[in-house]
Structure formats: C-alpha cells, structure tokens
C-alpha cells in the first residue's frame, strides 16, 4: 500500500522546515556543545525529510526528486504544520517547538512503523529512535529553563503560551494521538513548574498550503542558491 503524495509531503515538510529552523542556531547557541546538539538534531530531521520527499516524488510520478520538491515549490505548495515554521524568537521558543513537534513525531512514527505502507514503515522505524532523542533534549531544557531562574521561567512560560495554539493542527490527521501526546507533554510542563495553557484559538491551514508569512522568508533563504544556480553541485 502506498501513502498519498500530500500526506508524504506533510510529513517530509514538517521535518524539512524543522531542520531549516534549527540550522539557524548554528554558531548562535549559548554554548558550543549546544550548537553541536542542535545541529545533530537538524541533520536527523533533514535525513528523514530527504527520505520522505524522495518517496513523495516517486509516488507522484512526475519526475520530481527530493531537490525539486524542496527547492522549487512555493509556500502554497508546502504542507508543513504552521508550528514548525514559526520563528525561533528566542532559545525558549525553539525548545518549546522542539518539545511539541518531537513528541508528536515520536508517536506518529511509532504508529507508521507498523503501518501498511512498507516503505514508509521503514523510514518511520529509523526516525522514531531519533525523535525520542530530540524529545529528550527538549525535555531536559524545558525542565532546566522552567524550573531555573525567575527570568528563565518567565521566558519558558511565554514560549509555551505562544506556540501552544499551533499544536492543535498536528492532530488533524490522527486526532487519537493527542491524548498520549498530552499526557507526555503535560507531565514535562508540570515537572518544569510551567502552566499548561488552556485550549482555545487553534490556527490551521498549513496542510492545505495556507501558511504564515514566516514560511516565505524561510523558503527564500533556503531556496535562493538552487534557484539562482539550478542543479549546482559542490
């Protein structure tokens, strides 16, 4: 059984946009060790994105490879959830986004790993171990910032409040995953002495290509080289 192109693009674009956002932290982390950790996570996400986009291109059958899909689609053709494209205003926002998306990816990949699409199951089985590590990294930082100084607590809470509304969109396809996601995430927030925000506003549209303006800027930076020099190689 094969999965639909749109579905594969949604999964692949989540990973690709996450990787691009995390790549921004190279040389900007508080310490060199954190730089390496975030770059590792970004490369994990990029690796999964490449497998998913290559597969999407094959299923589509229009001759588009991973590069064509990554570098030559416009924002309206991207299928990522809005959460991953939000700008990392500070370290706490980046960590909150990583916590929420990696916990979601871990649960989703775990399910897909035993799914009917064997190719996708193989990709997911590899990715699920990486997601667990990403979630662990984000969890450790959430605990330290939430249960740290007054200032780190204030900023971590502000970050959680800011991105929480965007987590609803993650569960449009698999609403039943949200209960387990909530129990994981709420546990971390409680241990970090943070307040779990109330559910109200739930922005959506990413899976249909209706994005925030932030994605256009991200894509402009990511795609400019390929568009200026199509097919360029190192």
């Amino acid at each position, binding site marked *: 059984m094969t999965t639909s192109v749109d579905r594969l693009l949604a999964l692949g674009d989540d990973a690709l946009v996450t990787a691009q956002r995390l790549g921004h932290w190279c040389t900007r982390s508080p*310490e060199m*060790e*954190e730089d*390496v*950790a975030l770059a590792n996570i970004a490369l994990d996400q990029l690796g999964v994105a490449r497998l998913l986009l290559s597969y999407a291109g094959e299923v589509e059958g229009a001759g588009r490879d991973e590069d064509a899909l990554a570098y030559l689609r416009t924002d309206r053709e991207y299928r990522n959830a809005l959460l991953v494209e939000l700008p990392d205003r500070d370290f706490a926002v980046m960590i909150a986004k990583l916590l929420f998306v990696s916990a979601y990816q871990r649960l989703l990949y775990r399910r897909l790993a035993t799914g009917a699409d064997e190719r996708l199951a193989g990709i997911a089985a590899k990715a699920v171990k990486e997601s667990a590590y990403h979630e662990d990294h984000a969890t*450790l930082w959430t605990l*330290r910032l939430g249960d740290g100084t007054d200032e780190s607590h204030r900023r971590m809470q502000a970050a959680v409040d800011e991105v929480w509304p965007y987590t609803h969109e993650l569960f449009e396809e698999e609403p039943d995953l949200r209960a387990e996601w909530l129990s994981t995430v709420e546990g971390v927030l409680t241990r970090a002495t943070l307040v779990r925000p109330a559910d109200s506003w739930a922005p959506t549209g990413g899976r249909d290509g209706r994005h925030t303006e932030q994605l256009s800027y991200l894509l402009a930076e990511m795609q400019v080289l390929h568009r200026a020099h199509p097919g360029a190689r190192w």
Partner: protein
Amino acid sequence: MSETKKEWPLWEVFVRPRRGLAHSHVGSLHAPDAELALRNARDLYTRRQEGVSIWVVPAAAVVASSPDEKDSFFDPAADKVYRHPTFYQVPEGAAHL
C-alpha cells in the same frame, strides 16, 4: 553582558570503545550539570558509534600531577632497568611474546 556571563563547568569525558576494553579519556566539554554533560558527550564523542559506554567526571574532581614535579615523579624510573623484564631468556619456540 559578557562580564556577567558565567561559564558552564568543565567535564572530562571517558568512552569505552567496546565490551572488554577500559574507558579511555577522549576529551572534555562544558555543561551545566551531569545529565547534560552526558548528553553533550554523546553528541560530541560518540556520533560515529565510537563507544558503548560513557563516563563524565567534573574536571574539578580530577587530581593531577603537576608539570613542576615531572622530574621527581617520573625520571627515577628511567635508570632502573630491573623494572623492565629484559633479563629473561625467551625459550625457543615461545610465540606471541
């Protein structure tokens, strides 16, 4: 801001390359606490499957010999040839010595 910035403490990292071998010192890193030191060590020193086990030790807990004491510490060994097993006849046919 840079005046008030406190450096994270330094940790020494030991990695055991595989079962049966001892942990060897591979380098050091900065981390705010032991748990993150272990995570950072995993990222910095074992990303190409270099190890099966990691130890991290606060660098402040390491007691080191001083370079000034090099002579009294290590030189006396040099002229004590009897400490080296060089006075034995190797029996005919003993392999792997």
